[in-house]
């Protein structure tokens, strides 16, 4: 390993958490991934489609270089990776220790079902009497108290929700492998103390808890009596009244917390003393109940304590860094004023609920009906900004993604339910700020017939007879509009993560005024505390693309913290299993059948007779329960003979994913891919199998297919591809410098190539960021670090002239000043060629010195060359020549820059009149707050329609701007001393970078990502990574994040001297190949080239992903894929039809 690796904790296993964990695992670190929920996937586990592609692509996040290290299946089934230890149902209790050496206490909530024994047959769920709302379907459908965490989870390990289970024990009696341990053993061990002066309260609580629940309950009629009971015997829980003669409840609490600190206390208070109850909670009480209360208010609270106490399995682990990926939560519209009738009016649903309603695995199996009255839906309305951009629900920020989610859902609804479905979106500003969003929105409006209506709907009225929803809103011209809809989807905004308060005070994280964690200047992932990093959407709701970028960046920064020598590097290279070379032997297979505790009676010789003739089958052995320790000893005894070279295990679906193949590989010395596992239990125990299954016939097919699959396993040890431990970074802007430093800090020698004489790129002219951080010192610090760094060699005034070779061993020719040409080999390339301000046409630009672009204004402000007349007026025109064809994308930063510059001008001269003419203010995220501050400072905002663009008239030095004011419905003419055009950005139009590196540009000239959401910083060619503005417009910290993410992906390629080629890699049998090159165009990854001098088809092993497209198109199977050779596929087909 070229850099120090260690053990890193990732908190939260949503998309961000999984991305960080996989990145770190791919660069050699050991990762513990902790998740509060019982499954990984977070919010994405219940989303079938994502914008802007309207498809799903989660599995494209899986590792690409060493694919065999992780699961190769849909991520909604769950994630397994050699170096990632996943712990679901686990919370962080404490993080202490200083940088590089943190001890973390984890508490795992028990699921009451033994994971090794449960085989997901679901018999328990059939008999369970308790129905609870199913969070997977956002509460719209119910599931049993004993359930599988996710419908998709595989293997389907059932678990019990402790608070809902009535301990009736039905499931335990039914479970075939008795895997269920009822929650909390004996209830009578749970001791409760009730301290109250009124006898009636004491007796009734005792009856509820003792007779009905079976707890041990003691009572005390006064404070001192309670305390004496506490001294002589520990209690788990104390129910404490406040208003008592003599010693009141608070004094008792204060003494009790010293006397027996881990007794949980619940205060019981009359209405008047609620404040004192809250006070009591500050000094240690867990909760409070307002008298008089019913049993069903008291019992769940008691059960919570009971469960936690009973299932406590705390554990501490040592880690070198912690990455918080706890994501965010969605705003609950029923909290606050609930003026939109959520849960009171039928047909008012949140965006997440709507996603579940239209999903085929949703509560109504994909039928579009209203949850409460099952009424079919024909007319739909999406209401934007629910819980965002709204003081009343204290959410004066923009949640960034709700606009795009609404467009996606509207398009999906029309595609799925037909064109006569009426879909309208009611919005104030449609925030389509990413480079591909504007075209997505235009297509939604143009091709899918989605109606975009400007107007903020405040109240949802229900028509009592027809149960229709009536939407009243004032349209732009001011008159009132009403529209009747069947269903209204609330585009709910964001709130901080559920665990934010706890995590924040554990890691001393500074929070902003809305409760989101804040990061260091110029970084979206580093925090003040060195060992703690924030990934994904923890710092505020991000779309999937940003979440993936920030997660990779957080991983990079955590890994970088390990390199600075502060920590002792821990290399735990996996012990390579010694493998026996069996490539010379004919396939000899032994079959192990697990009868699952004798649930199956198997006649082995009937079975082997049915499987004959099969010379490669040596014999069949029976094991009672393969998943138990006794089972593994039995296997040990059976397998001592080494006459076999392949092993087929026939067991239950659980075994297919358990580590059994790795354990058997260690036990038998065989390579892991010569051991296969097939599931014979599901087909045989299949529910609803009426007649008694002829299990031998059924099993014969499965085993026969398994034998032929296994016979096709590739016995040869897979080759290693050498990696050249050297990186190339093209472009010396902020992204290039960050990427170069990130790689160099990991010990990778970097060639940084910059075409100009100096580094800095756009940092040279920008003065200040939105948050007020000064750029010049930051730029100086970066350049200084680069010049001093031993691993970085800087090439200025140099461009890349030629590029060729395979991933891990590229050959680049650089052309320096005075035609000095150098060629060198690189393992990976990061392109950061950046971008520039769009050259402006129109709006009178160039006809008068008063008309400037944003860049010119920023430069003039810096050199104080700007003197506007008194009192003076400045007009800023947004989307000047951009966000319309041919450049139909939003450059994301010009709105925020206009606001920054407007506030700068206003601070210098408060009397100055500033007008901003905009189409949609793209102040996503927390920049919305700056928008409000600008309005308060007196900046006048005038919205204009793309059809009626403002016009600038210049005669002499009198400049006037004429614009159609939509509300006053009149044309305004503003005399302007300065007109500032916000023209957005284009990629730097230098030499044909994409042609040289063999990657595809996108329609606007930026780099085309391999996958806009799931592989945002990888180009269409493996080994070439892209970042910065050349990838897509963004703020400085966003560009830095893409650079760090690109560095992390490059590290996965560079950090090892060679990479083990995956077993399923394409291969060419050159003697059969007639060089028709059909396979070259068939390869989706461009991994095949025609080497004309060798007259052969050559495959880049690291680019090939093993999809088999080449094998299928090649008529005479000259192009094949190991493990899937055609003759073995024929064998499997024959076995299936035997």
């Amino acid at each position: 390993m070229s850099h120090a690796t260690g053990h890193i904790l990732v908190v939260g296993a949503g998309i961000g958490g999984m991305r960080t964990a996989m990145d770190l695992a791919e660069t050699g670190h050991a990762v513990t991934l902790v998740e509060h929920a019982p499954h990984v996937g977070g919010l994405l586990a219940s989303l079938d489609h994502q914008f802007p592609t309207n498809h799903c692509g989660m599995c494209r996040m899986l590792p690409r270089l060493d694919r065999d290290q992780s699961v190769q299946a849909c991520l909604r089934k769950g994630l397994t990776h050699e170096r990632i230890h996943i712990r679901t149902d686990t919370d962080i209790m404490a993080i202490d220790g200083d940088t590089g050496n943190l001890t973390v206490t984890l508490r795992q909530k028990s699921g009451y079902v033994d994971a090794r024994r449960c085989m997901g047959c679901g018999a328990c769920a059939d008999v369970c009497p308790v129905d609870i709302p199913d969070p997977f379907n956002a509460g719209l459908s119910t599931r049993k108290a004993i359930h599988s965490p996710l419908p998709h989870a595989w293997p389907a390990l059932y678990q019990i929700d402790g608070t809902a289970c009535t301990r009736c024990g039905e499931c335990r009696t039914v479970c075939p492998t008795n895997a269920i341990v009822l929650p909390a053993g004996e209830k009578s061990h749970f001791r409760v103390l009730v301290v109250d002066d009124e006898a009636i309260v004491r007796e009734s609580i005792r009856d509820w808890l003792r007779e009905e629940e079976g707890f041990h309950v003691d009572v005390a009629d006064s404070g001192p009596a309670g305390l004496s009971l506490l001294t002589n015997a520990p209690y788990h829980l104390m129910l404490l009244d406040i208003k008592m003669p003599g010693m009141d409840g608070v004094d008792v609490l204060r003494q009790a917390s010293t006397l027996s600190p881990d007794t949980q206390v619940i205060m019981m208070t009359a209405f008047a003393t609620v404040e004192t109850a809250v006070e009591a909670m500050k000094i240690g009480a867990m909760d409070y109940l307002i008298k008089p209360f019913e049993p069903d208010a008291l019992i769940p609270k008691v059960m919570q304590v009971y469960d936690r106490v009973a299932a406590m399995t705390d554990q501490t682990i040592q880690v070198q860094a912690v990455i918080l990926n706890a994501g965010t939560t969605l705003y609950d519209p029923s909290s606050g004023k609930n003026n939109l009738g959520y849960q009171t009016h039928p047909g008012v649903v949140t965006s997440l609920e709507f996603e579940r309603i239209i999903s085929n695995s949703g509560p109504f199996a994909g039928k579009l009906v209203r949850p409460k009255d099952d009424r079919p839906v024909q007319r739909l309305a999406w209401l934007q900004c629910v819980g965002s951009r709204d003081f009343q629900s204290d959410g004066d920020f923009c949640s960034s993604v709700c606009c795009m989610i609404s467009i996606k859902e509207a398009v999906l609804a029309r595609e799925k339910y037909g064109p006569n479905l009426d879909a309208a979106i009611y919005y104030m500003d449609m925030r389509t700020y990413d480079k591909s969003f504007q075209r997505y929105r235009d297509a939604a409006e143009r091709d899918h017939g989605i109606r975009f209506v400007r107007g903020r709907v405040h109240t949802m009225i229900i028509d009592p007879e027809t149960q229709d929803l009536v939407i009243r809103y004032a349209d732009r011209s001011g008159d009132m509009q009403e529209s009747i809809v069947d269903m209204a989807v609330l585009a709910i905004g964001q709130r901080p993560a559920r665990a934010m308060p706890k995590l924040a005070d554990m890691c001393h994280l500074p929070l902003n005024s809305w409760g989101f964690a804040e990061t260091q200047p110029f970084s979206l992932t580093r925090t003040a505390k060195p060992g703690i990093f924030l990934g994904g959407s923890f710092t505020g709701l991000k779309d999937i693309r940003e979440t993936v970028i920030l997660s990779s960046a957080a991983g990079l920064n955590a890994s970088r913290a390990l390199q600075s020598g502060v920590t002792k590097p821990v290399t735990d290279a996996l012990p390579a299993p010694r493998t026996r070379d069996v490539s010379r032997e004919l396939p000899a297979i032994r079959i192990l059948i697990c009868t699952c505790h004798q649930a199956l009676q198997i006649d082995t010789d009937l079975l082997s007779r049915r499987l004959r003739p099969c010379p490669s089958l040596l014999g069949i052995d029976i094991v009672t329960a393969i998943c138990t320790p006794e089972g593994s000893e039995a296997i040990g005894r059976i397998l001592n003979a080494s006459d076999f070279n392949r092993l087929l295990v026939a067991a239950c679906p659980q075994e297919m994913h358990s580590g059994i193949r790795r354990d058997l590989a260690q036990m038998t010395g065989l390579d892991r891919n010569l051991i296969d596992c097939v599931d014979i239990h599901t087909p045989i125990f299949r529910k609803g199998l009426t007649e008694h299954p002829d299990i031998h016939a059924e099993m014969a097919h499965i085993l026969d297919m398994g034998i032929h699959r296994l016979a096709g396993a590739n016995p040869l040890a897979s080759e290693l591809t050498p990696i050249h431990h050297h990186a190339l970074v093209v472009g010396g802007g902020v992204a290039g410098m960050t990427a170069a430093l990130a790689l160099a800090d990991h010990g990778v020698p970097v060639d940084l190539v910059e075409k100009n004489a100096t580094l800095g790129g756009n940092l040279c002219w920008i003065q200040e960021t939105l948050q007020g951080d000064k750029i010049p010192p930051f730029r100086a610090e970066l350049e200084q670090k680069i010049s001093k760094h031993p691993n970085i060699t800087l090439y200025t005034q140099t461009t890349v002239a030629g590029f060729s070779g395979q991933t891990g061993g590229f050959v680049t020719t650089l052309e320096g000043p005075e035609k000095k040409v150098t060629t060198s080999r690189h393992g990976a390339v990061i392109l950061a060629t950046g971008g520039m301000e769009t050259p402006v046409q129109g709006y009178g630009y160039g006809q008068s010195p008063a008309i400037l672009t944003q860049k010119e204004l920023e430069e003039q402000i810096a050199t104080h060359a700007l003197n506007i007349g008194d009192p003076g007026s400045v007009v800023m025109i947004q989307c000047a020549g951009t966000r319309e064809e041919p450049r139909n994308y939003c450059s994301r930063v010009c709105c925020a820059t206009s606001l920054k510059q407007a506030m700068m001008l206003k601070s210098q001269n408060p009397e100055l009149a500033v007008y901003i003419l905009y189409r949609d203010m793209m102040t996503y995220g927390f920049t919305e707050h700056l928008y409000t501050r600008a309005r308060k400072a007196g900046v006048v905002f005038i919205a204009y329609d793309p059809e009626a663009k403002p016009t600038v008239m210049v005669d002499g030095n009198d400049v006037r701007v004429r614009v159609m004011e939509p509300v006053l419905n009149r044309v305004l003419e503003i005399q302007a001393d300065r007109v500032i055009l916000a023209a957005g950005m284009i990629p730097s139009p230098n030499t044909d970078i994409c042609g040289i590196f063999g990657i595809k540009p996108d329609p606007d000239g930026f780099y085309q990502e391999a996958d806009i959401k799931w592989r945002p910083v990888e180009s269409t060619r493996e080994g070439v990574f892209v970042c910065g503005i050349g990838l897509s417009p963004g703020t400085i910290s966003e560009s830095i994040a893409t650079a760090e993410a690109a560095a992390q992906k490059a590290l996965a390629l560079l950090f090892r001297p060679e990479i083990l080629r995956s077993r399923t890699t394409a291969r060419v049998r050159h003697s059969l190949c007639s060089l028709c090159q059909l396979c070259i165009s068939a390869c989706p990854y461009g991994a095949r080239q025609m080497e004309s001098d060798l007259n052969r088809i050559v495959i880049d092993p690291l680019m090939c992903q093993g999809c088999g497209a080449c094998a299928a198109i090649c008529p005479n199977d000259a192009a094949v894929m190991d493990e899937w050779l055609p003759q073995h596929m024929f064998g499997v087909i024959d076995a299936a039809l035997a």
Partner: protein
Amino acid sequence: MSDLYKLVIPDEGVLAGLRRFFRSILELESIQAILAPVQLPMKPSVMPALISDPDQIDHCDPLAPSFPLNAAKVVSQLTRNPIGGTVAVFLRSCEIRAFIELVKLKQGTLDEVVIIGMDCPGAFQNASYRRFVQSCTEDPGATFFNQIQKKDTAFPGNIDLAEACKACEHFTPDGADIAIGWLGMASEDHFLLKGQTDRGLDVLKQLKLPEAAAPLMRHGAIADMLAKRLAYRDDMFATTHAATSNLKKLTAYLADCVNCYNCRVVCPVCYCRECVFVTDVFDHDASQVLKWSQRRGLVKLPADTVFYHLTRLAHMSTACVGCGQCSNACPNDIPVMELFRSVAEKTQNAFGYEAGRSVDDAPPLSVFRENEFEDVVGIKGE
């Protein structure tokens, strides 16, 4: 400057005219050699040959009704790698179309070759040609061509044109650089020479031939030959379809097949160096053969006969130009061409693709579009 020239027919006859034309092309310094069918001295059989010495032109016999093999494979071999100069090739139109298919599969290039085509009168099966030669008194080529021009199909030795040629509707050489047209020219004293591409025009210009007016009769002649051929073809399709409309009939149709794979060897568009059926993929384990026998009671060996023909249909039916060599080569006279042409017709129509029409149409299975063939997906009623 029109693109029509005259190929004057001297009184010595059509053959002499053609030979003089070929000699004039060979004598151009830009053309290094010419590939044309040649009458072998040792035996009256005609084989393609690469002629460099103009004097040898007198052996070539473009009119002979002999179609021993599809020369597309020969031309592909001549153009797979740089030949060093330009070669003229005289090909029947099914050979031109087959060669265009091979170019799409990178088995040859069009850069260093000038294709000369002629209205194809059709040809005999190899066996029939040998009988025709014995029963001919003087030069077989000339007698055949005269009878064709007089539309008299009673050939000596009572033999008939090959099935493939009787059903061929592509008899005009549309893909050639230079097209020699004799159809509808009976009343003229010359054949028509048409430069169908720039390269063809450029060669014709160098020959400084007299220009020709657009012939009046030609269009009609082509139309009625086309009608005759199409009628024959559609009738052939119908009978073949009836003969193979289910597996029982198909197995009967192919019962005599001994898996010798000759039909694949001679097929111009079956370009694989080694057919998958002769590689290790179909070299079945003995235990597998036994298992088939046990399951079905009896298994005919060699196995995979129908599987071979179906797979060959799947692989090359979209590229089949209907040249008939497969039937020609089959030792057991299985009408392979009829089966493959009738299926090829359907598969090429399905993708709106015509084999050999133009180099720019990509082979159907090598390209795809996002939304196409929606009807193929799903299990609603057929």
